[in-house]
């Protein structure tokens, strides 16, 4: 469903992605691991359409469409979702109102009728239950004053509401204690289905104790330098990145 071919991208004059290839099939979970500065977050941002990156070569197709030609909201309409490494605070924007606007924008773009307030509340309650979350976050402004764990949970909750075909979790495990990590991982697992693909971008093997990936890729110096199964992550855990001839950035 996602096919990245020879992707090169730079920030300013600095090339970060240097010919990256990645194939993701329907329902698969891929972990992308790599040391700091290897280009992991850049990949997540380029796929989601964030400003500030220039793609100089290569292609990205998503369900047969040229993803790079689309605005961020159009990518979301196609079913792409980015769980942010640093979820953004939106003071004054109510979480429930925000989710309803997002869901209805996506539905409208797909030619589906908008959900009314009652149907929306019903859906929200149901998804909260699936994720074992309470509704305390919903009445507050989006991420505003949330703890790190609450922000990450809110990302997973948005994912549950928007039902993407491909979710990219950008270092969702960073800064979480074990309990928060488990809640987030349980959420991702609860949302796992044969139609939904997931990219887990992570620095540590830790997250993969809780979410079983089908494939593991090592990203270094702007390229995927090795791909394998779950065992690759364990090998990295044991030997560190140095084993693959990569220097950890300071």
């Amino acid at each position, binding site marked *: 469903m996602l096919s990245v071919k020879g992707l090169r991208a730079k920030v300013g004059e600095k090339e970060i992605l240097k010919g990256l290839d990645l194939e993701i099939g329907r329902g698969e979970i891929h972990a992308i691991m790599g040391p700091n500065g290897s280009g992991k977050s850049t990949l997540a941002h380029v796929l*989601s*359409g*964030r*400003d500030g990156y220039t793609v100089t070569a290569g292609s990205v197709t998503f369900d047969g469409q040229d993803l790079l030609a689309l*605005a*961020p*909201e159009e*990518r*979301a*309409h196609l079913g792409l*979702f*980015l769980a*942010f490494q640093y*979820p*953004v*605070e*939106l*003071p*004054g*924007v109510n979480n429930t109102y*925000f989710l309803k*606007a*997002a*869901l209805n*924008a*996506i539905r409208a*773009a797909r030619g589906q009728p908008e959900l009314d307030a009652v149907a929306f509340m019903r859906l929200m309650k149901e998804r909260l239950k699936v994720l074992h979350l309470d509704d305390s976050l919903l009445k507050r*402004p989006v991420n505003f004053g949330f703890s790190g764990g609450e922000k990450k949970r809110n990302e997973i909750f*948005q994912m549950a509401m*928007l039902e993407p075909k491909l979710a990219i979790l950008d270092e969702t495990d960073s800064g979480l204690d074990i309990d928060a990590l488990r809640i987030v991982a349980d959420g991702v697992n609860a949302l796992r289905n044969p139609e939904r693909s997931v990219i887990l971008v992570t620095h540590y093997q830790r997250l993969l104790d809780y979410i079983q990936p089908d494939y593991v890729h090592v990203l270094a110096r702007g390229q995927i330098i090795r791909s394998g199964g779950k065992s690759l992550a364990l090998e990295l855990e044991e030997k560190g990145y140095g084993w693959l001839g990569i220097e950890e950035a300071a």
Partner: protein
Amino acid sequence: MSAVSGFEQWLAPAEAAASGLQWLATRRGEARARVQGQGVPGTKQEAWRYTSLTRLLEQGFSAVAESVPLQPEAIEHLLIPGLEAWRVVLVNGRFAPELSALAGLPAGVRIGSLAEILRTDPDAVKDRLNTIAGPDQPLFSALNTAGLDDGLVVLMDAGTALARPVELIHLSVGSETPRVAQPRHLVVLAAGTQAHLIERYVTLTYALYCTNSVLEVTLGAGAVLEHQRIQLESPDAFHLAALYVRLGAASRYRCTNIAVGASWARTDLTVRFSGEHAACDLQGLYLVGERQLLDVHLDVDHCVPRCVSREYFKGILYGKGRAVFDGCVHVARDAQQTDAAMTNRNLILCEGAEVDTKPQLEIEADDVKCSHGTTVGQLDPEQLFYLRSRGIGAALARRMLCLGFAGEILDALTPEALRMQVTQEVGRRLEQAT
């Protein structure tokens, strides 16, 4: 009337309150002399530094005496759904009893038309009218006083209470010649009373007109006034508002000022503490777009000790909109333990928009807690991207962030139906901006 250059027609017709009251004639006459003495302020005078009166004068506004008969159905769509209020409706500055709702007021409370009270019981207002505004009135207040005529009066005796809000609807109806209305309002709350005043400036049709209003408020010891002022004038209109507030000991005053309409709107808010332990909370939101100019001037005088004031104004500017925020908090030498904080935050949506912001503290006392701060910024690209990454289109995303910014002020509006109505109107105007 030679030297009142440009403003002769503002004072022309006979007053509705032609009452033969000597004291009233004297006050009008003094104000008239003051207008003549001042001439037209130029941009060299500090209070007018950022704005020019030329455009106002070019319109050739004149006062019109005749009343505009309206059926209650004509204003139904302007009412706040479900709001039960003591309602005074002024049409082009004149009391419209057939549109108002004042039956069954409790004893000791008077709510009604200034012109009527001047006719029937002038002594009820004699000691209050024009005394809070004082003798040194700037041009437009002096003009209002010189033409002093009709408006809202709220008088509450000690020990009285109001179960409903007082709602003033000032309705402007366009006429063939551009006209000016100069409503004059007086609110006097005796010790220990509480009231909620909703002032709304609205129009039936898009038209060119000018509203020059003055409101005088006196709060007795321990009195509480929740005041909401919503300005939704026609896009072509001129709107001038002067508010003079005097706060007795331990009184509480909160004013939420929403300014959305008019091609030029100016608000002068003057607050003077006259007793200790009083508190005032002045907050506002202005939305200024293409061909709009908006001025907010605050003058808060802490002349007695141990009072608290908060000044918090937020602005959203777009198109070639231009705003001026000029806030001054003065703390007199004896006003020890004053607690004052003034903040002005602005959101600029386009390059052509502009704001001049000038918060000032003048502190003569040495044991005080005072601060001021000002920000001028743009929408945060990170926030925009976050919304768009969730499928929300760029225009709606910008509007949501603007409403989030404005919400901090709009959320103070009560009842909920009023908050919703004003929020929707702000959202509607933002559609042009985003």
